[in-house]
């Protein structure tokens, strides 16, 4: 089992307490609303678009004033936006080098997998990789 950054671990634990998938999806919907650094629709560009997502999703990575990582994003589907939110909360303010080391299997841990499997083959994995690579570049 991987070591997750504490905020991410807390979210994972919260998901683990859910009774069934419907409840977990409900939780994802709630996180979608808590998205910390929302990318406004006017800032949705082709460059920050996540390829391979069925719905539209956009993410951008920046460094805050303390050198911490910051994930900005948004999606038109709530479940995707919920995932972005969790990731954004989970990595907020971390050194980019830690972000570069996160593995995508926290989604497995959260056990929302069944509904996300197909996306993993393209959308979610693409998004995750895009973020991880940017973090890697930032930490060099």
């Amino acid at each position: 089992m991987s070591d997750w950054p504490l905020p991410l671990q807390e979210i994972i634990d919260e998901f683990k307490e859910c009774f069934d998938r419907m409840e977990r999806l409900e939780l994802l919907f709630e996180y979608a609303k808590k998205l910390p650094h929302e990318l406004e629709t006017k800032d949705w560009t082709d460059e920050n678009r996540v390829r391979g997502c069925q719905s539209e999703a956009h993410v951008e990575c920046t460094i805050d004033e303390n050198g911490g990582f910051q994930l900005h994003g948004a999606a038109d589907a709530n479940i995707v936006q919920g995932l972005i939110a969790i990731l954004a909360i989970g990595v907020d303010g971390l050194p980019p080098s830690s972000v570069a080391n996160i593995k995508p299997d926290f989604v497995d841990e959260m056990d929302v997998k069944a509904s996300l499997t197909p996306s993993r083959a393209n959308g979610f994995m693409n998004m995750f990789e895009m973020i991880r690579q940017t973090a890697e570049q930032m930490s060099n």
Partner: protein
Amino acid sequence: MGLDLDAIRADFPILSRTMEGGRPLVYLDNAATTQKPKQVINAMNSFYENSNSNVHRAVHTLAGEATEGYESARTEIASYFGAPRDHLIFTSGTTEAINLVAYGWARANLSKGDVILTTEMEHHADIVPWQILSKERGVEIRYIPLERDTLTLDMDAFEIGVQDASLVCVVHTSNVLGVRNNVEQIIDISKKTGNHGKGAFVMIDAAQAAPHEKINFIELGCDFMALSSHKMGGPTGIGGLFVKPEIMETMDPFISGGDMIETVTLEGSTFQKGPQKFEAGTPRIAEAFGWHAAIKWLSQLDMQLVHEHVSNLARITSEKMSSIPGIKIYGRHDLDTCSGVVSFLHESIHAEDLAHLLDSGGFAVRTGHHCAQPLMEALGVSSTARISFWLYNTQEEADAFIDYLSSIVQRFG
């Protein structure tokens, strides 16, 4: 006497699968691909376990069994569609079948300035090959628009447009709207008034029609008809193009190689006659056995009953869905001719979220543009959610779907 749904369902192993939380699978994605009865799975197993061999040109026993099986699949599948065996070319599916018309027939018979008439409700398989041809050869493509209020083809526009057209390509039954086009009338008018009275050639995309309607290719009178095995209970990897033999003779080879030639020398080659000219290389042998088994299986049923069952489910379900707050239906289900497809959206829940939520209840539902972006454009949306029934779906499943959808809308809407 209606369909014996218990007996039918018992033939499909996958229908007894339970999903997360022990919920039964309710498979409502039949327009994408149907499930396979065990007779189809067994036919392919039996081929691989007893007779597997390459076909044609060999005299050993296995090759004989494989060849007989492959060729009798052609005979029986063609016959199911009312045609002699020399009318059926095996392809990998509807998409390749339409490409075969585009590469094999249209490139040999159409040229700059000729007009291909198609429609705004086509699947991409019946749009993109023509666009590529158009770019390459200057053939012009025109689209019959959809009447926005009735969601049917604008037949006035068709009657005018067809006069210039050398080739008319129309989807028999829409994979989004559930609407069946009046293909008989379209063929009739095309033959009478197409290309300034000389008659137009007609290609019918029957991918969505064949699973629930008995089609007779000869009576229908079109020149080409494309379909896929996997949408009618058969395996993936095979489909067919029906072609009138006299038209087949005017086609150039498309995919070339072994089995489609008569002689090859370093200077050039001569080709087989009939369907074999278009079936290069090792064919889809096990797949032909499987599709044959699907056709045999379907032949036991009264296709009129299948059609009524499927379209009734769609009609009743779409009516109930309309009364769920925020749900909007895209399509028509009030006609006898409609299929089992119901497209819909919720005013605030994104289609993809809907599908995820429905999946948590065991309901397999598709979302997206359904390979019909121009139609989406005409409907003013970028995607829809879509349920699609086939013969094994039950009223109970439909009711359970309505209940679950209602609860989702209450919770998330």
